[in-house]
């Protein structure tokens, strides 16, 4: 049998570096497809020996898009090592910062990365199917995207001093209180940002039905879903406990404390990828595939907890059922969350406690292990550290949102490849749809490749005709 290999290398309009390999049989049909993540960061290993209180600043460097999520998950792990309960105002401020990041990150994903597919067409000229094409053909959407992202970035800068890698979030809380002047500045900008979020959501709901074939074949697979919820099952981005639901919407596990995450989550590796592959431990690697991120969060939560987002949440599930399976709907869920984040910012800024001056607890090492979990824009983010008595990191484990989605992304890539790729009449738009599946998950690959030691490498030696001559696994 002659094996033909198609490569999408690199997958564009994602954060980080990846490629997709698609195997065709001699009839031109897809026989296999895999997403490969081709970069390694290794933060788990090289942070060993660093003082634990440096971890928020160090691990924030993992990502330029969602550094706030790493700051928060890391600071929470450090809070646990210090065994402190941070002041109420510090928790409010951390959530406020986090919501601002959700707004900017979701705006980046929707407008800058995926809107070219959605507005210009999956089959449109690839030379124009990018954000520049969007600027040319849909300047009003491009302006909205810029303004919404700017709002989130600006709020982060006003709160934390810097847009990227701010040092405001520290173990024990934050390092400075919020001034009334900054509060009022952000509040003044909120209405315009909400108008954009509402307008974009209404626009997307108007076009989503045009993508019936993509909805049916973009990772329209049965998996579990995981996300943080509060004690009553409401959506949580900054805090909360882990919940898993299955593809029918049934509760699988609930109210799992961050420190107990390993009872539910195990990790494996995949051939030819630096990206770890977590799975739901009780069901094993095959049946335990789960997804995280906007779609998963709206699948696991009972409600959002803010008026407008709750109305959108109800409509979303009314349209697509209790467990929404197609990865295409990550876009829809992302826009609902952007609106939710803006509403939460409004609520947090209206709380008189937000201006309280007590914003940081101080302590040394009071526990030799700490776990911090937050919802990054792309999903559950886990930082788990072990320290010695002096507070030096002895071991670190980072389970990053994109990693949680690894197995599901591979299944999604295969499903889309099988449906859209015809090896006998290959067209660029077919390959673009496979890339668009990956983009729907909004993977952040720079965030997610920290496996210590050797990755599972599979080297295949193929003859010119494609026959397998030799292979090596490490």
């Amino acid at each position: 049998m002659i094996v033909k290999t198609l490569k999408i290398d690199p997958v564009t309009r994602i954060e980080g570096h990846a490629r997709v390999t698609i195997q065709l049989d001699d009839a031109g049909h897809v026989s296999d497809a895999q997403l490969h993540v081709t970069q390694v960061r290794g933060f788990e290993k090289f942070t060993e020996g660093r003082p634990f209180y440096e971890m928020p600043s160090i691990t924030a460097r993992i990502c330029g898009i969602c550094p706030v999520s790493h700051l928060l998950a890391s600071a929470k792990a450090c809070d646990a090592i210090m065994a402190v309960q941070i002041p109420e105002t510090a928790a409010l401020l951390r959530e406020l910062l986090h919501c601002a990041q959700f707004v900017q990150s979701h705006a980046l994903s929707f407008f800058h990365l995926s809107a070219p597919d959605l507005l210009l067409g999956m089959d449109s000229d690839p030379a124009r199917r990018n954000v520049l094409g969007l600027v040319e053909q849909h300047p009003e959407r491009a302006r909205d995207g810029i303004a919404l992202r700017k709002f989130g970035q600006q709020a982060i800068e006003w709160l934390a001093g810097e847009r990227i890698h701010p040092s405001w979030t520290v173990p024990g809380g934050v390092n400075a209180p919020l001034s009334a002047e900054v509060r009022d500045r952000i509040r003044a900008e909120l209405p315009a940002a909400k108008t954009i979020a509402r307008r974009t959501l209404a626009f997307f709901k108007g076009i989503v039905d045009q993508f019936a074939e993509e909805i049916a074949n973009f990772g329209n697979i049965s998996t579990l879903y995981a996300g943080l919820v509060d004690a009553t099952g409401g959506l949580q981005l900054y805090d909360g406990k882990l919940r898993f639901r299955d593809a029918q919407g049934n509760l699988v596990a609930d109210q799992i404390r961050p420190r107990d995450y390993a009872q539910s989550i195990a990790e494996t590796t995949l051939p030819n990828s630096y990206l770890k592959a977590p799975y739901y431990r009780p069901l094993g690697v095959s049946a335990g595939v789960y997804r995280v991120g906007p779609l998963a969060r709206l699948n696991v939560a009972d409600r959002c907890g803010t008026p407008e987002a709750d109305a959108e949440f109800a409509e979303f599930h009314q349209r697509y059922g209790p467990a929404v399976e197609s990865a295409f709907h990550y876009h829809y869920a992302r826009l609902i969350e952007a609106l939710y984040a803006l509403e939460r910012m409004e609520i947090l800024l209206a709380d008189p406690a937000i201006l309280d001056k007590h914003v940081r607890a101080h302590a040394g090492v009071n526990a030799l292990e700490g776990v911090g979990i937050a919802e990054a824009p792309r999903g559950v983010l886990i930082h788990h550290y072990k320290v010695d008595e002096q507070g030096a990191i002895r071991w670190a484990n980072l389970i990053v949102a994109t990693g949680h989605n690894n197995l599901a992304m591979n299944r999604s890539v295969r499903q889309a490849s099988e449906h859209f790729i015809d090896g006998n009449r290959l067209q660029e738009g077919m390959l673009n749809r496979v890339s668009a599946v990956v983009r729907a998950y909004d993977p952040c690959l720079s965030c997610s490749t920290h496996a210590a030691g050797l990755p599972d490498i599979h080297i295949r030696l193929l003859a010119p005709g494609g026959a397998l001559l030799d292979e090596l696994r490490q």
Partner: protein
Amino acid sequence: MNPLVIGYGNTLRGDDGAGPFVATQLGAGAIACYQLTPELAEPISQARQVIFVDAHAGVPAGQIAIHPIQPRVSAALHRFDPETLLAWSERLYGRAPDALLIGIGAASFGLGEGLSPAARRAARKALRAIRKLSGPFVLL
């Protein structure tokens, strides 16, 4: 109305921080940033003139080079250049102002903060040139 000065570069890579250094010296009315981003298109569209300041390996260390620039869309999508920002400003907000790029001759882009003596000399020349071009900036 003063021109908008945007100094950009990585302050953790030696002389690459020359652009932000110049913008910081100018204070109000100048933007110091790590890199150019789409969000800058709107304030650019509202400026009488925009002056970009960036460290440049192609300019002799200690010297500066001043070039007028025009809106032009770059094919490289992973980073913005000044010409692309001007094009976005024109397309999205209806106006691209006159623009200059001041290249600061740099000696070292290695890891570390602070400018080399040569880059510092060039930065001072850039500040004088900006003051001459634009009038009453107040040096900090």
